[in-house]
């Protein structure tokens, strides 16, 4: 295929360039034909998928950029640096658009903590995010923490970044203007991370002899991060944009210089000459292919006019950021058919020998597309049939509930979650809520809300419906802070695409996301696909992670949280029963999974019913954010762990018990399906009347008070027991000797 493009044999350097650019990680060659089905349109969408980040118009002259990525395989091998450079990479994607990064979120997936290696991974990943994110000066405002054996040899480290910019300053990574200069900013180029996208990100782990075999051979492909370099690079790049000194700007991530130069040239329809000898190196004796494909961190490529070079050099010197002219924008080459072709030429000196010459778009956009075979897993029917919803309860519901309680505070306490004075609701709640503000932005009274969500347990049973429900769950989380969802980004973590079952899961999941986004009126504005998440031939459960961005029109008062007050009435808002063959399905719940029961069905996705409950709650909370007084005193989405878990979390946070009516058995305690909210009110009649008008069902659950959580005859736990168990669960697991 390369031979067809070039009409000759490629030399070894050219082959290396195609090798990294046509890797799964860079080219999405297995997933692209499926991703096209996602809806991407919306009146407020300024930039959709395919750019460095998606961008929406948030109002008041402010645009919000958002992006999510995975750094799974580097983190499996070297958790601190893998996670740290994941943060660094996503920040560059966002400030490439001209946006100041304002928030990071980290959905993390590990094996069970009874395994010492998992504890090492958790501590390494969390300290990597903390060490890099805090120092680089971007708050980490939330994420997710999931433990499941399917991630034991292949943990997932996803990272989402959101930034904002004055709408008129939006920048795209385009090289234009023949004669312009390509300037490499930031770090020197070394041998770290060569082939990161192909060796690491686009291959599974053999893991035949257990986790030990993961490490050593691939460790040199992991990059090393320097947050101080990145911090100065952010400030320098934003200052260059403020001063109007750049034509286009592009981050250097996977596949390094070859990726940045070919993408900017292809987008601009111009040629690019890169002088490989001009690139500042960290070590002697590097081969051109190493220089061109190195993934050394903290580098950016700026396209500038020659007249601005002095100003650019001066500004970069102030921030102690290295700036080097490494390329020239040149006329496209005219081929024998008279067509203009944007060529990427790698030279030894600008007038020197041409080491490689390939059409830029052939690297950036014309990787082969695979329509890989798909098949529904043969054992899925049997798995679905083995439904735990029919199980008789065994043991004490009290113990089952305590077993589900985990406070992730040990993780998020290590993250600066408050920088920039925007954080109204920080980590550990249903969704994060920020003021829409930051250096260089016009004043706005608006807020933005962010949530990341996943449910691999659902998606293993039914990737299509599981993904739809995951989107719904995320929209419901935003409603709890008063936000209306505006856009979706996704990080699709799947196994080996060469397994037809994995391709089927991916395709189904994309269809489920499409269905949910169309049903709920949401555009997908960006995403990332991470394949080859396998080890020893075992694929992870399908793990589509969604990141939801929402807006609160007026944010002058904090929304109510999980803390309820003595004497409040507790209500369940939304349909009490699932839309399912079971009133309270248990398939895919945390309750069932903790008992080793991984089969069953997931509830149906019903956009209309979901939207009614979600819109009602979002409206109730939004009016509180706008400063209107309300009888609503607390709100919590019913999510993982079900209704009993939601109630216990509210007990733990408020240090106040509750008396709840008898429920329909253990299944209602632990069943999981979105579109339900626990809310408290100090005027239940008024609240029910408003819900009636909205056509949303409300079930009276009980009242707040006392030092005990009592749920009918099933649950009877002291507030202290609930709170201390929740508070200590994670730290006790991490401290286990083993």
């Amino acid at each position, binding site marked *: 295929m390369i031979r067809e493009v070039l009409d000759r044999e490629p030399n070894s350097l050219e082959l290396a360039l195609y090798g990294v650019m046509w890797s799964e990680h860079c080219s999405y060659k297995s997933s692209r034909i499926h991703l096209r089905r996602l809806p991407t349109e919306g009146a407020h969408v300024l930039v959709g998928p395919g750019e460095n980040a998606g961008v929406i118009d948030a109002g008041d002259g402010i645009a919000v950029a958002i992006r999510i990525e995975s750094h799974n395989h580097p983190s499996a091998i070297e958790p601190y640096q893998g996670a740290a450079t994941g943060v660094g990479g996503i920040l560059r994607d966002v400030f490439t658009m001209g946006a100041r990064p304002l928030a990071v979120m980290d959905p993390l997936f590990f094996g069970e903590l009874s395994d010492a290696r998992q504890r090492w991974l958790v501590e390494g990943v969390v*300290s990597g995010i*903390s*060490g890099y994110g*805090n*120092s*680089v*000066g971007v708050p980490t405002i939330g994420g997710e923490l999931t433990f499941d054996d399917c991630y034991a040899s292949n943990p997932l480290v996803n990272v989402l970044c959101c930034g904002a910019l004055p709408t008129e300053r939006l920048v795209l990574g385009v090289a234009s203007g023949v004669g312009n200069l390509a300037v490499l900013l930031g770090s020197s180029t070394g041998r770290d991370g060569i082939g990161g996208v192909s060796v690491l990100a686009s291959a599974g782990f053999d893991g035949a002899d257990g986790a030990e075999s993961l490490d050593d051979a691939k460790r040199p492909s992991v990059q090393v991060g*320097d*947050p*101080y370099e990145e*911090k*100065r690079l952010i*400030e320098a790049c934003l200052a260059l944009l403020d001063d109007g000194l750049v034509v286009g700007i592009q981050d250097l991530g996977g596949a390094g210089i070859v990726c940045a130069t070919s993408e900017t040239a292809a987008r601009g329809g111009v040629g690019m000459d890169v002088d490989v000898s001009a690139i500042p190196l960290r070590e002697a004796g590097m081969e051109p292919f190493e220089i061109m494909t190195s993934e050394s961190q903290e580098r950016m490529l700026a396209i500038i006019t020659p007249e601005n070079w002095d100003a650019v050099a001066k500004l970069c010197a*102030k*921030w*102690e950021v290295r700036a080097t002219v490494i390329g020239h924008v040149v006329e496209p080459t005219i081929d024998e058919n008279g067509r203009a072709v944007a060529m990427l030429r790698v030279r030894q000196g600008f007038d020197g020998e041409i080491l490689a010459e390939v059409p830029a778009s052939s690297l950036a956009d014309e990787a082969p597309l695979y329509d890989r075979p798909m098949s529904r897993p043969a054992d899925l029917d049997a798995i679905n049939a083995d439904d735990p919803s029919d199980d008789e309860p065994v043991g004490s519901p009290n113990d089952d509930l305590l077993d589900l309680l985990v406070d992730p505070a040990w993780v*998020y*306490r*290590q*993250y*600066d*979650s*408050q*920088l*920039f*004075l925007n*954080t*109204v609701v920080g980590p550990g709640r249903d969704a994060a809520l920020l*003021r829409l503000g*930051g*250096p260089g932005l016009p004043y706005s009274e608006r807020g933005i809300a962010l949530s990341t969500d996943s449910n691999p347990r659902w998606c293993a049973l039914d990737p299509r419906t599981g993904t739809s429900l995951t989107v719904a769950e995320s929209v419901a989380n935003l409603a709890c802070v008063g936000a209306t969802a505006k856009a979706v980004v996704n990080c699709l973590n799947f196994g080996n695409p060469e397994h037809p079952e994995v391709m089927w899961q991916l395709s189904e999941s994309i269809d489920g996301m499409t269905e949910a986004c169309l049903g709920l009126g949401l555009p997908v504005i960006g995403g990332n696909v991470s394949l080859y998440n396998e080890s020893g031939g075992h694929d992870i459960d399908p793990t589509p992670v969604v990141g939801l961005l929402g807006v609160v029109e007026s*944010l*002058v*008062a*904090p929304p109510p949280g999980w803390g309820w007050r003595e004497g409040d009435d507790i209500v369940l808002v939304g349909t009490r029963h699932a839309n399912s063959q079971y009133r309270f399905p248990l398939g895919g719940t945390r309750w069932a999974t903790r008992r080793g029961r991984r089969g069953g069905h997931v509830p149906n996705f019903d956009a209309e019913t979901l939207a009614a409950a979600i819109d009602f709650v979002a409206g109730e909370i939004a009016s509180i954010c706008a400063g209107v007084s309300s009888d609503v005193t607390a709100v919590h989405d019913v999510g993982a762990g079900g209704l009993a878990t939601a109630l216990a979390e509210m007990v733990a946070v408020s240090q106040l018990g509750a008396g709840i009516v008898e429920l329909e058995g253990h299944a209602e305690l632990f069943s999981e399906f979105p579109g339900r909210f626990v809310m408290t009110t100090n005027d239940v009649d008024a609240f029910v009347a408003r819900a009636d008008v909205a056509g949303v069902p409300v079930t009276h659950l009980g009242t707040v008070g006392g030092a005990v959580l009592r749920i009918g005859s099933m649950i009877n736990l002291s507030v202290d027991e609930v709170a201390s168990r929740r508070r200590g669960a994670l730290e006790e697991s991490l401290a286990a000797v083993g």
Partner: protein
Amino acid sequence: MSRIGVVVFPGSNCEYDAAAAVERLGDQAEFIWHTRTDLDGIDGVILPGGFAHGDYLRPGALARFSPVMAAVERFAATGGPVLGICNGFQVLVEAGLLPGALQKNRGLTFLCQPTTLVVSSTSSVLTRHARVGQELVVPINHFSGSYTCDDETYDELVRNGQIVLRYKENPNGSRDDIAGVANKAGNVVGLMPHPERAMSALLGSADGVVLFEGFLGVPLEQPALAN
């Protein structure tokens, strides 16, 4: 209206937040790049939080050599008010403008969480508007915030009322729960908690207002802002 200089080192990251707190109370904030050698026309100096010079070597160890620090030292010597917040406190300690040192937290992890501070002395520019015993909810955000000093220094701090703020519940292992100290004259103050993050009920606490009002010399009779 006062002109407050907010010193910016490469790697600082709380400079915008410190400036916002100053401006919220009606004063003017001006960024001072670390290579500047004068503080002409400046009425007060804030060294904000962050990771000056990447915190390489150890927090504050390189920043003390930035050219601006000689000017800060002269400014402090003439009685000018100087406030170091978090990394700024670490810089002041490294520069010898405040006694003691800041070690890694007892639990050896970074900690970002609300804390309750107890005002223990009002003889400093930061705490002069507060009451002794007053409790203030102000967040911390640091890895190396455990205050330590030798016994002799400690006795002197106690004797002179230089311990200005203590944690109600010690989060990081600081000696005697110390959260903030002042120099003997009371014009140079450092604290690990971030009062600029506690300026608004919307963000969880407005208890930092009384501290900034003191630092900015807002007349006492002027009522505190509600939010």
